[in-house]
Structures are given as C-alpha cells and as structure tokens.
C-alpha cells in the first residue's frame, strides 16, 4: 500500500505539473482539493484520465471523482480495489 501511495504521488506530480514538489511534500491524508495543492476542476478531470490510463479504471461520471479524490490514501484504496491493470 505504501508503495502504491508513493507511486501515485509521483504520478500526480507528473500529470498535474506540480513544479518543484516531491512525493514527500504531499500528505496522503490531506484533502487533494480545496486548500493545499491549489488544484482545480481541470486537475480533477486529469486525475480521471490517470485512473483510466495507468490503472484501467473507467469512471462513469465526473461526480464519482469527488469521493475518490478526497486524499491520496482514499485514491490508493480505490485503485487497489478496482484496478484492472
């Protein structure tokens, strides 16, 4: 699990172009959206693509993202449960 969390942080930094950030800078229990990383609606859509591209998880609608992207840990749990690749 911790390995997946670390990998996920690296992927998030990469696809969302979080310049100057390292995986250690992201608290896996902190909310991804709202305060903190300064992410917006386009970032949320890009995370949906990440789920599909890297883990073969297809979300039916964008609203599901709201629950899944609560924190990196919640996201990792979801991936563990649903990944197809």
């Amino acid at each position, binding site marked *: 699990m911790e390995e997946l969390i670390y990998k996920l942080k690296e992927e998030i930094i990469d696809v969302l172009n979080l310049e100057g950030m390292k995986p250690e800078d992201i608290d896996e229990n902190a909310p991804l959206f709202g305060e903190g990383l300064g992410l917006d*609606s386009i970032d949320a859509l890009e995370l949906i693509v990440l789920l599909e591209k890297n883990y073969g998880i297809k979300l039916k609608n*964008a609203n599901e993202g709201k629950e899944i992207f609560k924190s990196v840990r919640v996201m990792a749990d979801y991936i563990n449960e649903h990944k197809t690749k």
Partner: protein
Amino acid sequence: MRNKYHIYQKSHYIISPLGKGSVCNYNTISMGESHLQSYSGYWGIPEPFFASIFDENDIDLHRSSSQGQAYSRFESIAITAAESAFQRAEINPDSKDVLFIISTTKGNVEQLEKSKNPDSQSDAYLWHSAQRIAGHFRNPNTPIVVSNACISGCSAQLTAFNMLQYNDLYKHVIVIGAEVLSKFIISGFQSFKALSPERCKPFDANRCGLNLGEAAAAIIYSKSTETESLPDDTIIMEAGAVCNDANHISGPSRTGEGLLRAIHKVTEDFDTNRIAFINAHGTATLYNDDMESVAINRAGLQDIPVNSLKGYYGHTLGAAGVMEVILSSIALQNHNVLRSLGTENPGTAMPLNVCMQNSNTNGDAFLKLISGFGGSNAALLFTLNQHR
C-alpha cells in the same frame, strides 16, 4: 449616440445540417425540428456522442476552386455561406471596400490527424485557410481571423462594427462564422465530461451538458449615415461589448461579473423595455446557464423572455454567434420569440423567463449574449428599423 454610422445587416446566409438558407433554417426550427442525433463509432471516436453533423455526401462540403484545387470541409461551407450572402446583397466581393472577417475556433484542425509533419500542415493555420476563403472571391484585403473561443462569432461582429464605424476605407464587412467537428474537438469535450448523452436541455433543472454542432453562417454588414433610406425591418446593430471575467480559463464566473459588465455597456442609454427577447448562450452546461441567469438577474432583465438555440443545432462554436444572430434577427422581423427547444422544467441559479413556446412580441430589439473559454463574454444589441 456616439455612433457616426448606422451599421445594418445587408444580407445573410446559413448552411447547417438542417438546411440551406437563413429563412429555410428559421422556418425549420420554428416547427421545432433539429438534426441532433446520436453518433456511434463515428470518425474513430470510441465513445458515442450526440451532435448535429453535415451529411458526408453534401456537395457543399466538397467544393473546389476554379483551378480545381479542393477546399476542405471547413473552407467549403464558409465559401458557400459567403457566396450566397454576396449574391443576396448584390455586392462585388472583389472590391477593396469589402473586408472579410472569419470567425472560427479550430478551422482545419483535422489536418493534424492527416499529416503528422508540421511542415506539411499549412492548411491548419487559420490565417492560411482564411486567405483561401477570401481568395476564392478575389478579395484584395488580408482577411482578419477572430479566434476568441465560443464568443468568436459575436467578437467578429463587434470587430466588423468597429471597422465600419471608424475606418472609412470599408463600406461592407462580411463576417463568416464556420465550424466543422472532428475527432479532435469531440474527444476534447468528452474529456471535459461536458457533453450530454442526449439532446441538451438549456436552462433546465436537469440539464447535463452540451451537444456540439456544425454550421457556417455569414452576415454582410454595411453602413449608412441615416436610417430613413434603409428598408423597413432592416436589422441595425446598435452596440456591442466584450468583457473578461478574469476568473478561470474554463469555468464561468459564479457572479456573472464579466457578462454583466458587457450587458451594462450595450444597454446604457437604451430603453430596455424595447427588448423583445434575450438570445442567450444557453449551452446547457450546469455552470454556463447558472452564470447567465445570475448576470441577467443582476442586470434587472429577468422578466424579458430568454431563449437558447442550442437545442436545435448544438453548440456550433465559432459559427454560433453569427448563426444565432441571424435566426434571432428573422424572429424579430416576424415579431416572434423562438421557443427554447429542449427546456422542459427551467431551473437555474436565478429564475429566468425561459421561452417555452413560440410567442408573439411587440418589442423592436433583441440582446444577444455569449460566453466562453478564456473567460470572455460578449453582448450585442440589435434593433428593428421601423418608419413610423
């Protein structure tokens, strides 16, 4: 009135999947018809989508120059719209007092799929394509391309207005709005989760996204120092404004600030009781329609009937502002307010008087609103010339 000239519509033309000709399109939508339908496996796009697309065999999509050079689908429909507008206006397009303004967001972007080598992608450059369109008519001026995302069509009309108002070289400006769809555009809107899986429902409580559509529309604007000599029922462009929200590149402002400022600019010194209807953008996305409802309410115009034409054609991007102004102009001339097709139960952040049935009006003006990516908003105000 600061305006030196009265800027009026000399002629116009629409080519859409619903039909050819402005009046033909108007009559068809007055009967509640639409070409919006589901496409599955189209253009190699994995997910199905709902859109309004030209019949691939339509000859007006496959035109060529007198030297036999083939025009793209985009150039073909733009040329068709312009050619018919010039015929109706009885104006020579090769004159130096005629300026071409072309409104599009993506032009020939489908070229990128056909040729991966940047050096052979000249057709994808909007200015290049514009020169082929203006060149078809042997017009001697460099055409101006306006590319302001979804508001391009209204932006282009405002540029035309200013060019006629302030530049004595030009007597006529043709504004051509055209857009064709492609895998590029559809996949992008799908990735935004912005598309509705069925006919879009502008201003509806259950709206769930937009539909995309193809079309080309052209309006020739001319100028006159007085209105007495203009025919009865001529449509006059009174004012236009473009304002930025400075809020977000893809999300409309929650407060409708930019659109409100644009509305204020065009309606100041104007008796808003004259406004027969507001032809809004009404894309049927959650945020756009809410934003428009907020701006219209803040401007105090919430009792005026509002419609969106997206339920007939979908969002035709660079063509939308031009085509919707033409259809609204004909509606005003017929003292009619077109029904907002697709709206069942209006439900926006602030209440609007959405037009649910075609209805009569005594007003002699309409307000066109449009907003888009990049945070831009436009408002245009038109009146009906009536000799009393």
